[in-house]
């Protein structure tokens, strides 16, 4: 392991040097790949992109849901009951001549729109007029609009007909519904045809004083959603780029600080989209979130590298450009690769999600992250090497303020360490408690703001027609002709009665309503009774309109459909009513089997499925991040400790969801995994710095402050870039994207607070030993031979012990120990020389000198007072450990501890065997 790591380090240094020597080669490869990507992505002959956009909402429905087979059966047998557009016409009296004239004009205008299959309204449907053994089925003609008696009779017929009641006109006569069927067969076709948009435009154009027109229905909501997402996609990336360009200009106040990140993200996006094009996948509503994410994240990565570069640029000993780039690469390669890996891990955790679109998003974004990391580690340094010649005289803007701030924050964190950790613990526990309040749910139309036209129209129609959200109940009989039996029809009728009593159910229409209506119209049964015999049922169905009836009962009357409209569109509310309906359907006898179906059911089950996988995804992401950190720190325990800040960030996110009543759904699930990967990046940058500083200063507290000083500026800048990038989404029209933006920004800000306050406070109390540190720590040559305490230990064990203890530097001419002080620490000299002396009769009496390998202070270690002074003669490096260190080593590395104790005993024994008592006494000190 260690030799491999050494090899890895050397190889990395070699690659860095080669990259620094051949910047043109790097640029040439980047240009070649970019040209290849352009040729793949753009059809220059046709002047178009070779990248399809799939605007449908289908990717938001998980496959293989329990309701999927039912839904497919319903579509195969009864068509698509969800796909009607509802146009609501409201006036003082829809039966007035003026209103009927307008309804007729609107109906005709709608009929003229391409891809409108059929329009049903008060003036287009042949309405029943019966009496005296005659049945007339006629449309209203314009010369009848003024016939009050006729209209009164017509209204009475409509209001009392079991099938028409409340469907074409409300009972108060103030609202009329115009139902528009489309001939398109998919969301994509609807969007491309523009039929939904044309219906909305045509309908609203006829709005005037006293006339209010609203348009809604699943095709309208889905079309508006798709259209808004595409529109948002068009401006989001440019807006983010523009905004962040300003931020970069402010942060670096140099051209390279602006154009280099922009070119880098441009290339990364181009390569990513070209790959998508090459594998023939379209960009859908979920994967379209990848470009803004990659743009934001790419800029954040670049900001880290540029900050490091700017710091190196100001180092006087790094005047040589090649060397500067080589050093830059050595410094950034580890953290950038690791942050790329953790971001990728956060994204790849989404692969456990049931939605194919989310899995595609995870893969596409991970690929983009990979391209970005490659560019940041090759193209960016190469460009910096080629374009930057002179070191700037001025420091980076705000650098001094950040340094001062970091110092203050670091000291604050150390001083109030316990307080901060207690506060963090309390907040974390509170967040966990609040997260228990999270509920699962999503809304069809809730994606639009309350003031949007789509939402307002939906709410108005929902209120007037008592429900818009479609839901179906698919009932299967045991034998053909089952629904010709009056007994079966009676059961359906009782079910419909029960459904109508449910508060969320606005309207119910089924076979029994059709039969009642037919019975009334064809046999003159005015009481609204169901047909009493199987023969009469058969004959009524035989005379019925094939197309209409085929939407409710199949040709051999073995299966039937009950269509409902719900007044709610939140999947949580729908889930509640579905649970009650399912329980009621269980009461059917064995001969009938009923299940719920429709978009509402699919969406509800999909949200459940997606969110139930949420914990799985996050646990997986956290576990892999933990593994990465464990590898970095060469300890599963330290890896776990280093993961705690990330756990806190996760808890804060879910706590916020619970606190603000935000529901868990596909959007909110997506945010956490995404932001988890991004938030941990800065923690890794910090910990990497802390590691280096701890090794350099041999003090965790000093290192905690030093690391904060080094990373405060870049992590603040990257978090600001990321948060600003995500906040661009809050200006959009879709509430789920707005929520996405706010939540992502909140999580990043919370992550920044954790990075700045909690992580330094926490980590300053943790002794961190990394594999790399242990390898780098130089205890000098022939450790086992020159330092008796390490006799019999391997080089790695010696270094591990040294780092589990404390390595301290002591300047020359300083008292390391004072006579009479309490003991407790043992010292081993690594480098330098010291002298032990005491006062005798006012005279300074030298007792002994110490050099490499010598041990002093062990007498005090065993509970005595210091018996002499020990003063440094040169600058000295010593290894210092106490009882607590020994305890820790015993726990974690018992074999190592046993050997150390054995060696210590040997050293003591050797001392005791020496002839001069004075010196013997003094050696122990």
């Amino acid at each position: 392991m260690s030799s491999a790591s050494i090899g890895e380090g050397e190889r990395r240094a070699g690659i860095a040097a080669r990259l620094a020597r051949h910047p043109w080669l790097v640029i040439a490869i980047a240009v070649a790949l970019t040209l290849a990507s352009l040729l793949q992505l753009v059809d220059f002959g046709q002047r178009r992109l070779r990248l399809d956009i799939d605007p449908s909402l289908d990717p938001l429905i998980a496959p293989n849901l329990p309701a999927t087979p039912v839904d497919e059966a319903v579509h195969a047998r009864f068509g698509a009951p969800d796909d009607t557009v509802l146009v609501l016409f409201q006036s003082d009296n829809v039966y007035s001549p003026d209103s009927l004239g307008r309804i007729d004009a609107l109906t005709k205008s709608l009929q003229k729109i391409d891809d409108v299959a059929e329009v049903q309204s008060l003036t287009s449907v042949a309405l029943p007029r019966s009496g005296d053994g005659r049945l007339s089925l006629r449309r209203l003609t314009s010369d009848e609009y003024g016939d009050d008696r006729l209209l009164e009779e017509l209204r009475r017929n409509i209001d009392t007909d079991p099938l028409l009641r409340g469907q074409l006109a409300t009972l108060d006569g103030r609202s009329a519904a115009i139902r528009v069927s489309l001939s398109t067969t998919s969301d994509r076709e609807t969007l491309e045809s523009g039929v939904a948009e044309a219906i909305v435009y045509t309908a609203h154009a006829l709005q005037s004083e006293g006339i209010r027109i609203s348009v809604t229905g699943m095709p309208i909501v889905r079309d508006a959603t798709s259209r808004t997402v595409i529109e948002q996609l068009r401006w989001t990336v440019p807006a983010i780029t523009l905004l962040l360009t300003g931020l970069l200009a402010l942060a670096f106040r140099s051209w390279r600080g602006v154009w280099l990140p922009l070119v880098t993200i441009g290339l990364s996006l181009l390569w990513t989209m070209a790959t998508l094009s090459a594998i023939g996948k379209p960009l859908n509503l979920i994967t379209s979130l990848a470009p803004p994410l990659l743009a934001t994240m790419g800029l954040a990565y670049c900001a880290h590298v540029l900050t490091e570069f700017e710091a190196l640029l100001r180092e006087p000993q790094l005047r040589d450009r090649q060397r500067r780039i080589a050093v830059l690469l050595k410094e950034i390669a580890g953290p950038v690769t690791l942050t790329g890996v953790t971001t990728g891990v956060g994204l790849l955790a989404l692969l456990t999600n049931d939605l194919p679109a989310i899995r595609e998003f995870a893969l596409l974004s991970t690929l983009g992250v990979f391209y970005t990391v490659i560019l940041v580690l090759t193209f960016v340094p190469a460009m910096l090497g080629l374009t930057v010649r002179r070191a700037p005289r001025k420091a980076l803007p705000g650098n001094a303020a950040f340094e001062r701030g970091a110092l203050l924050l670091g000291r604050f964190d150390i001083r109030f360490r316990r307080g901060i950790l207690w506060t963090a613990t309390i907040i974390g526990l509170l967040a966990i408690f609040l997260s228990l309040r999270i509920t699962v749910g999503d809304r069809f139309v809730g994606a639009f703001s309350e003031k949007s036209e789509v939402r307002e129209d939906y709410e108005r129609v929902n209120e007037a027609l008592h429900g818009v959200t479609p839901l179906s109940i698919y009932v299967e009989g045991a034998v053909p002709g089952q629904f010709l039996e009056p007994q079966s029809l009676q059961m359906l009728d009782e079910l419909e009665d029960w459904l109508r009593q449910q508060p969320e159910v606005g309207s119910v229409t089924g076979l029994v309503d059709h039969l009642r209506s037919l019975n009334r119209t064809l046999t003159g049964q005015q009481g609204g009774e169901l047909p009493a015999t199987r023969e009469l049922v058969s004959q009524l169905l035989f005379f019925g309109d094939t197309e209409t009836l085929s939407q409710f009962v199949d040709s051999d009357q073995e299966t039937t459909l009950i269509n409902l409209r719900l007044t709610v569109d939140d999947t949580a509310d729908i889930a509640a009513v579905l649970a009650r309906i399912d329980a009621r359907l269980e009461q059917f006898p064995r001969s009938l089997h009923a299940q719920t179906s429709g978009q509402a059911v699919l969406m509800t089950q999909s949200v459940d499925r997606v969110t139930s996988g949420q914990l799985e995804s996050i646990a997986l992401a956290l576990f892999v991040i933990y593994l990465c950190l464990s590898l970095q720190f060469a300890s599963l325990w330290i890896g776990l400790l280093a993961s705690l800040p990330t756990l806190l960030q996760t808890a804060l996110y879910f706590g916020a969801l619970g606190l603000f009543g935000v529901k868990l759904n596909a959007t909110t699930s997506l945010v956490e995994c995404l932001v988890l990967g991004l938030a941990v990046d800065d923690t890794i940058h910090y910990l990497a710095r802390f590691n280096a500083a701890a090794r350099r200063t041999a003090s965790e507290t000093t290192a905690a402050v030093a690391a904060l000083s080094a990373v405060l500026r870049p992590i603040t800048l990257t978090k600001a870039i990321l948060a600003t990038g995500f906040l661009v989404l809050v200006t959009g029209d879709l509430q789920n994207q707005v929520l996405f933006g706010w939540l992502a920004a909140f999580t990043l800000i919370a992550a920044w607070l954790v990075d700045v306050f909690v992580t330094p406070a926490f980590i300053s109390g943790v002794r961190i030993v990394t594999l790399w540190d242990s390898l780098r720590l130089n205890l000098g040559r022939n450790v086992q031979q020159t330092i008796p305490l390490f006799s019999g230990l391997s080089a790695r064990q010696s270094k591990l012990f040294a780092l589990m203890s404390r390595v301290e530097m002591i300047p020359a001419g300083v008292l390391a120990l004072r006579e009479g002080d309490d003991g407790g620490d043992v010292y081993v000299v690594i480098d330098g020389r010291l002298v032990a002396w005491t006062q005798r009769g006012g005279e300074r009496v030298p007792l002994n000198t110490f050099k490499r390998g010598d041990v002093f202070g062990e007498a005090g270690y065993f509970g005595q007072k210091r018996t002499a002074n020990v003063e440094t003669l040169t600058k000295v490096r010593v290894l210092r450990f106490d009882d607590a260190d020994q305890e820790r080593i015993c726990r974690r590395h018992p074999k190592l501890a046993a050997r150390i104790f054995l060696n210590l005993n040997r050293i003591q024994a050797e001392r005791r065997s020496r002839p001069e008592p004075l010196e013997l006494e003094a050696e122990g000190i």
Partner: protein
Amino acid sequence: MTFKFARTGFAAGLAALVFATGALAADPAPATAVEADVAAGLPALNPAKASVEQIQACSRANLAAKGSLRDVTLKSKGRDGKERTLKLKLFWKPAKGSGEGRLNARVVEPKEVAGSSYLLIEAQPKEQLYFYLPAANKVQQVSSDDLTRPLWGTDLSYNDLKQLQGLAVSGTTKRAGDEVIESRKTYVLETKLADATPQYSSLKSYVDQQSCVPLKTDFLDKKGKVVKTLDADAKTLSQLDPYWFVTAYTLKDLSRGTQTAIELSDIFLLEQLSEKNFDPTSFYLANE
């Protein structure tokens, strides 16, 4: 959800059978010189010079002018792939004096609907339509102006067949060259309907040049997309002098993914058919 239910079906159903039997097309009083010539059995048309009116009149001349009986079997296949069979007997007899066409359709199978009957009487300005439900023992007269809906669980609609037959087509028809269908030369007629329905707005008919029987009709929507097709099985084209007729058709509704096969028996001429079959008060009884 749609609201055009059973009531619209009656007139449509009967007229569908009119087409199948060719009965109503036997216009009692040819109105134009061309029709009179064709009805009088004048020489066949010159394919190169035949006008739209001549072709239409030639077609109408194929329809029986006497009382008759035909057995009809409709086999429809729904979206769900299930097949349903319907058998009817069609009685046709023109009214004495006025010559108005009268058609009685009586359902034979399936058992639950057996005995259901329709009576259609051609009258000016509008036909009269009656139906009888045996389970309710009730006759009702129906009038409807929505005749585009499919009937009886099949793909047939009154208007489809009526317009196809040229009985009540309100629109502009023009010749659009000639084509060969199943090795037979046909006239191609394009009709743009004056009153376009939501289902279709124009028709394209392929009329056999030898017999003037339509062998194929396409129903097109506003965009010119074919939404329904009616195909005659040209192999069943027969002649009962002087009439030509086909005994097998297939009607496909492409938008609904359904189809109906229409099988017709030969024509049995029944000149002594009882008048009770065509009386609104007794048409549903077995009067033959």
